[in-house]
């Protein structure tokens, strides 16, 4: 059993209808990809495929095979667009 805090921003926040929540995944060596699948099942309004979602664990981007620890903070990160309007 792995329990984490999940943060939603921008598009994901609006689609999930929540900005932060606690979430538990059964199992010992749960990876980021499994958590994303669970999130997409619980929030069917999230339009991205779970394997395409970029996420950060404890403020660092991680691949989906990254193993989660109890107490981690996981943030779903939509494509970023800071800076300015122009390319």
């Amino acid at each position: 059993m792995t329990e984490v805090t999940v943060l939603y921003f921008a598009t994901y926040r609006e689609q999930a209808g929540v900005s932060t929540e606690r979430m538990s995944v059964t199992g010992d060596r749960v990876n980021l990809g499994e958590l994303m699948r669970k999130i997409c099942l619980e929030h069917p309004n999230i339009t991205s495929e779970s394997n395409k979602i970029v996420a950060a664990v404890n403020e660092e981007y991680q691949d989906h095979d990254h193993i989660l620890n109890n107490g981690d903070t996981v943030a779903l990160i939509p494509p970023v667009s800071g800076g300015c309007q122009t390319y």
Partner: protein
Amino acid sequence: MLTERYRVRITEEKLNPSDATDFASSERHGATVVFHGVTRNHTDSRKVILLEYEAYIPMAVKKLEEIASEMCSKWDVRVAIDHRLGRVDIGEESLVVAVGSPHRQAAFEAADYSVDRIKQTVPIWKKEHFEGGEIWIGDVDGFRPLEQKSN
């Protein structure tokens, strides 16, 4: 010493370019290049009303610091990066990057580079409010979150 060569700020206040310019300057410097990212009244043919910025603040600060630190290791520069959050009206700055250097080419290159990097890794998003709707803008192609993980 290294930490004194840059500073980053994320704020809901109006940005102050001359403050950033002052931070980036030094008696050793012959050039300062200041980039202002400003809300524009259009995107392609859409008429923009305002932009609204949101960030994952602690991670955005960390990523901006990584970029500033990277600039200081690639070039002989001092760097101030200020990003605004919340509502940013037409003509107002969302981003100010000030880069001072003994040599102008380094200042130009580092400033240009910083804007590219900010679009690749810093968790800040904008919602464009235009006539007839609103949309979250994301640059799927530019987004390169994992490129720099080893830092």
